[in-house]
């Protein structure tokens, strides 16, 4: 049971060498006791392997207190200084901007970032410092060559390994000492004499890595050089997307269309963007800057009837249904003797009769005196419809017999 075992992998004797001695324990007490013995015997190159942290193992192994807290402290102070320097440089030296009327160098405003960087650097110091001090990640260890170790190390057994490179190493003496020490198993672990890679390959590999490392510095160096110089050449375009977009520009050829033009003509019945208000006659009632003499729309009975309908809704309150200016609002205002009231003109007044269609359209749109503007309530076409109706209304009050179609004159009373 306690005789030295052959290494797990059966390698020819010539190709292996002794890694060290491995002892197996089944309790932490035995492990701690054995550790104290080995510590007191003065070994240096040895270690314990446990599936979980064991209290008191540091002391039993004679491990000095870690310097990790010191590393974290230094990292924290570095972070603190970096945070302050960063903000001092950016906010008050390199690009000074007054923010919220605070001084350029304003400690309270800098504290949050300084605090965060202190914490960040401390955390990095703790994590990477721990990994470094433990020499992690570790991809290979001599004890991996023991099958017993590999099987139970992470479950329920505790191990001590003493490496052959220890100056006091003597396999048989150590085996004897450990056996009398509560170990349930002691074995001499052998490992392949040669490292995983042959020495020539290793040397070349290292050289190749060094060369690659140096070569890798060239692109950043070139970039840094070009960034600090001016050049007559067009610039190097690394990202083409924004500069060279896959789109058709004005006056270019587009094979997708039969006529080959990238710019498309206006589709019939549509108005180009921004041209909706180009027709002054229709929109403003103007022709060459003067009030248009005619209606902008073809005058039909339908249009006039539409105008009559709207006149009843919007205009008759003041102007009256007959257009003489006796609508209920006007009548009431007259009765109240309001000083600011301007009575509406009669539609049949010669002044109104002489006005151009465009002028009446403009009055409806923008209002006049006490009459409010109706431009935002009545659509353009409806305003022209009202104009058409007003013209009809005017004619109705001094119509001649000739205005009535000859075949219907008999219907008149």
């Amino acid at each position, binding site marked *: 049971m306690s005789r030295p075992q052959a290494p797990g992998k059966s390698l020819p004797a010539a190709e292996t060498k002794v890694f060290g001695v491995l002892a197996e324990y089944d309790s932490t007490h035995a492990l701690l006791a054995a550790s104290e013995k080995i510590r007191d015997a003065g070994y240096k190159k040895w270690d314990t392997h446990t599936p979980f*942290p064991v*209290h008191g193992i540091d002391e039993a192994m004679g491990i000095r207190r870690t310097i990790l807290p010191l590393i974290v402290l230094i990292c924290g102070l570095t972070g603190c200084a970096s945070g302050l320097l960063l903000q001092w440089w950016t906010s008050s030296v390199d690009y000074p901007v007054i923010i*919220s*009327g*605070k001084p350029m160098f304003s400690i309270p*405003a800098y*504290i*949050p970032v300084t605090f965060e960087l202190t914490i960040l650097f401390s955390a990095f110091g703790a994590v990477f410092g721990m990994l470094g001090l433990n020499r992690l990640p570790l991809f290979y260890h001599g004890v991996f060559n023991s099958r017993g170790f590999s099987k139970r190390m992470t479950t329920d057994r505790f191990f001590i390994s003493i490496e052959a490179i220890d100056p006091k190493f003597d396999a048989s003496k150590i085996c004897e000492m450990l056996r009398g020490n509560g170990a349930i198993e002691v074995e001499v672990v052998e490992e392949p004499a040669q490292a995983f890679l042959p020495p020539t390959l290793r040397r070349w590999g290292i050289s190749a890595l060094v060369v690659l490392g140096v070569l890798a510095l060239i692109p950043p160096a070139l970039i840094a050089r070009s960034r600090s110089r001016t050049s007559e050449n067009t610039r190097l375009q690394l990202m083409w997307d924004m500069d060279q977009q896959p789109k058709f520009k004005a006056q270019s050829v587009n094979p997708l269309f039969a006529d080959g033009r990238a710019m498309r003509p206006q589709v019939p019945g549509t108005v180009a963007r921004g041209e909706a208000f180009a027709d002054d006659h229709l929109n403003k009632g103007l022709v060459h800057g003067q009030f248009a003499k005619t209606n902008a729309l073809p005058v039909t009975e339908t249009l006039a009837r539409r105008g009559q309908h709207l006149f009843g809704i919007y205009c008759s309150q003041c102007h009256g249904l007959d257009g003489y200016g006796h609508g209920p609002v006007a009548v009431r205002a007259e009765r109240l003797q309001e000083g600011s009231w301007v009575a509406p003109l009669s539609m049949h007044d010669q002044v109104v009769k002489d006005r151009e269609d465009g002028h009446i359209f403009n009055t409806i749109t923008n209002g006049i005196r006490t009459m409010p503007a109706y431009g935002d309530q009545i659509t353009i076409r409806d305003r022209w419809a009202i104009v058409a109706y007003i013209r009809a209304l005017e004619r109705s009050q001094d119509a001649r017999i000739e205005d009535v179609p000859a075949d219907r004159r008999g219907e008149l009373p």
Partner: protein
Amino acid sequence: MPHETPKELLRLNEAAPRLFRNACLLGIAGLVVSLLIAVSVDGGVKRAYHSYLMNFCYFLSLSLGGLVFVMIQHLSRAGWSVVVRRISEAVAANVLFLVVLFVPILFGMHHLFPWTREELVASDPLLQWKQPYLNVPFFIIRCLIYFGVWCGLSYFLLRWSQEQDDSRSPALTLRMERWSAPGILLFAITVTFASFDLLMSRDPHWFSTIYGVYYFGGSFLGFVSLLPVIFFALRLNGYIRRSVTAEHFHDLGKLMLGFTVFWAYIAFSQFLLIWYADLPEETGWYARRLEGQWGWLSFLLLAGHFIIPFIGLLFRYPKRRLRYLAPWGLFILVMHWLDLYWLSMPEFYWGVEGADTGVIPFHLLDLTTLLGIGGFFLAGTIQWLRDCSLIPEGDPRLKESLSFENA
């Protein structure tokens, strides 16, 4: 590694009545002297009330810190802290005595809270607007709720723990855990609003939502700093010399360090936003505290309440040695007292015309009321520990606590 309760002095026994009497005498002496000064000095009554409220809030904070400490231990099912829990429970249960000491404050409200003074409210639309909350009947109702919650929680947590000394029933541990969950929620709400009512409303124009957290941070820090001082005093007289070890003090030291930082974090969070926004309705409170002598006190707090203890407690050495940790605890307790002074006293001049607000209105009464309430606080702690062990002997995690080691 000790696995049995070490044979040592774990009961105050015959020392208790003597200690209790002396502490009561100290309390009576402090309050009587305060009363004498108050009635003999011009304006002394108002001054005495201000000192009294401040010192009341100081000792209240220590008790509340103890209460939340106990509840946290239950909620986290902590093993390490069992040996320090009984003292914490006793300190927390002092709230029951503080209720009695709270009564005088109700008679001096017009000295302490400007919103109770009708002539001020009549000329101040803001105070009228706040009347639905800041009025005397509702204030008293709220205080009844606060003290009811605190007394109930602290009394039962102490009593069940004492019951367990004899019965050794793990069911009591579960019961305490179960009550701590809603308890800590109620604690958070009541402490927040109590700090608004007792301290923040002394400047009824000003408001800060983080104020309750600030008071809580100071309270917890004050309490974990009080524990090493108590253990130092007990050890000096031969009590609990072995059960509470360097490992426990190490953890208490870590909490002291952590909450030193927490206090500074919260204090700065409150300051930064107000300083940065620079709004008139908020800056007045800080302007008062940065003016004249108050400015020096503010910087003293920055140094003494944060920087110095932070550096001092950063190292492992003092945290593991009670003879260093207890002085640090005392130091922080002094700073916590100054913090409450800073929090409360600048409002002494609130609504007073032509006062020199840059002067710290220090008065002998600040110290006599400190001794008065402090004496009764000490007496209360001794009273709760009179007939029981100084550590919860029946706790199922006692063994874990006794053999606790920091990794």
